[in-house]
């Protein structure tokens, strides 16, 4: 049995990880974007300085400040916390209900919950972009969740304990199947998908699964003088 050689990381491939720049520096492949305005084009960032990057408009001032102030680890929280009151589609009330649902779909363990990983940012952004066609479904569905919560517990969804919220979401998955499935799928997309869309902050779910992140690139599989035979 042939064994693969140790991976060789091409040193010119990316700038070294720099803690003080936080998230933006750790994931150069997934440039931060301004929250308003169309998705920016992927612009090669290798070797560019922070200043260059601000010039091309890929960091909002807030993110830049957050990245600088909080550092890499805190950003998993920072990217959703910073978003409060600043949604593109959702109202604050809708967002709070959606947080309750999403965090039952992907709860926190030693890795963050859906909302802490930016799933709401993902859903909110897509609701004015690719998922515009689901705007009504979200608006009406979240109202129904609130009504269901009031009917079953006499309280708002957002003031329930996590255990009670679990009961409501369980009921939702049975009684309002298509709405629940939509939210479930969008939540998992946000949590496990590409960080470029606002979810999966700092590639947290990929690191949770043990995937190398950033991925190892420029693997040298071959001694080119000998062809592919190892």
């Amino acid at each position, binding site marked *: 049995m042939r064994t693969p050689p140790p991976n060789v990381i091409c040193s010119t491939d990316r700038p070294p990880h720099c803690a003080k720049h936080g998230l933006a520096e750790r994931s150069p492949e997934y440039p931060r974007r301004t929250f308003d305005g169309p998705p920016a084009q992927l612009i090669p960032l290798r070797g560019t300085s922070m200043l260059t990057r601000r010039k091309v408009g890929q960091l909002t001032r807030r993110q830049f400040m957050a990245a600088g102030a909080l550092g890499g680890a805190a950003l998993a929280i920072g990217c959703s916390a910073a978003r409060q009151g600043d949604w593109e589609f959702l109202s604050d009330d809708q967002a709070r209900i959606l947080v309750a649902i999403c965090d039952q779909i992907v*709860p926190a363990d030693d890795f963050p919950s859906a909302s802490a990983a930016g799933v709401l940012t993902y859903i909110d952004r897509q609701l004015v972009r690719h998922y515009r066609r689901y705007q009504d479904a979200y608006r009406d569905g979240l109202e129904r969740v609130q009504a269901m919560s009031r009917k079953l517990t006499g309280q708002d969804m957002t003031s329930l304990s996590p255990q009670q919220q679990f009961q409501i979401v369980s009921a939702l998955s049975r009684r309002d199947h298509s709405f629940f499935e939509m939210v479930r799928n969008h939540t998992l997309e946000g949590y496990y998908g*590409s960080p470029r869309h606002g979810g999966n902050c700092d590639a947290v779910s990929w690191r949770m*699964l043990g995937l*190398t992140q950033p991925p190892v690139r420029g693997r040298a599989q*071959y001694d080119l003088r000998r062809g592919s035979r190892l």
Partner: protein
Amino acid sequence: MKRVNAVVVGAGAAGGVVAKELSVAGLQVVLLERGKWYTTNDCRKDDLRNQRTTVLGNAFGPEDEGNPRVWIDSKGVPHTVLPSEGTYQNDAACVGGGTLSYGAQAWRYMPQDFRMRSTYGAPPGSSLEDWPISYDDLEPFYEKAEYEIGISGDFAGDPFHGPRRRPLPMPPLPPNREFEILEPAAKRLGLHPFNLPMARNSVPYNGRGPCMRCRWCCGFACEADAKNGSQNTVIPRALATGNCELRTECMAKEILTDDRGHARGVAYIDSSGRLQEQLSDIVVVSGCATESARLLLNSKSRLFPNGFGNRYDQVGRNLQGHHYTGAVGYFDFETYDDMGPGASIAICDYNHGTPGLCGGGMLANEFIRLPIQMVDRLPDNTPRWGLAHKRAMRDWHKRSIVVMGPTQQIPTADGRVTLDPVVRDKWGLPVVRISGNVHPITFDIGEVQARRAEAWLKEAGAIHTTISAGRPEIVSAGQHQAGTCRMGNDPRNSVVNRYCHIHDVDNVFVIDSSVNVTNGGFNPALTIMAIAYYASDALVRNWKGTGFRS
């Protein structure tokens, strides 16, 4: 606009090859492509927006806006569907077509795959037929495709393939961990595993470097440009001759006809929305099975009131793809080594010869999985959400192997493409309407194949398996779509002759997967390219200066 010798509609697997072959032979060619020309810089590695996971749209076309289709479900209800939805049956719309973002498995069909009716007899209700050409007719062109496109792999372990004169031009990539787990298991079962063929550089080839084995492979453009499609092989060579002009973002509207029933050229809508006419001596339609049929059906004229080549109502029929079935195995040790492309080992023991059933297919391990592709592939009893789902993701993402295969679909005349009478696309053209299904015997062999995949995984040590074998209500005709302009000798049940030349008209050709009579138990890209080389060869040999004489 200057008159040219040939207009080729569609710059995909077949169109690229045809453009290259004709322009090398000295013909003046215009190659029309409705999509854009993407380069390696457009490789965005976007898990949610690529050609495989399309929840946020297709990365390489068509866009969701302005490109609808209509799907008629089994109860006869029409649904308007978007390109990012599965029932749309999308391939891609860009230079390179599907070959820009495909997984790049590059198979030859087996000799029996060209003689399905003779081998099995046609099941009642099916439209199963033999090809008018054989494996031997295509063999030299398979070889040419393997060397010009660039294929790596090793057939040494496979006793079932047809005769071949030369080995593949490149050795296989070194085995990944799944290969090392599955190979001894297959041998213990008496099967014949081998390194599957890939249109991917394992060593420097054609002036480009080898695969760097990243995680973003099937569904993505290759960042290292190590994946070989028509966009980085034959199309640049066609352009380099100086005889070929590639016009992107140009949508063919119809084939123009003169009073005598000859094609005059192609009317198309250019990137700025203007209607243009490109006159030519011959027209080659290479738009993939669904879109080629649509162009022919949209080309109505006094002499062809039902569309080009459609005198006997054959255009659009026998739509087929592949019925993918298989199994997921879950292991108590790590099987994932983060090495693309992932798919590495295949068996062809089950392509033919299952008693009482018809056809079959190759089985191989699946392309490298992204986490988003794993969320619905967890063990059967896993809750669909909540902490248990998250735990299962953590438990199984790196400890599972998927073995699947493209089961040959047995076509019917009712599984077809027509034009929708109401819905129009952004150019105002009637859109594709997909209806009917393949023959149900397809699903029987699909289930058998899934059990075989499961048995292989269990032998390899899977502690738990789940089967994936459905009975879909629709022809699975996405990236592997084929069959709508069947090749045959009789004009009453086929559209083109053995040289891909439309029976009715003496200067129009359909050269792409549309002509496939059956679709083999393999990914079809290499066969599409081989047919393109084969048909171009006949076309060039019969070319007489400014016209075509058959």
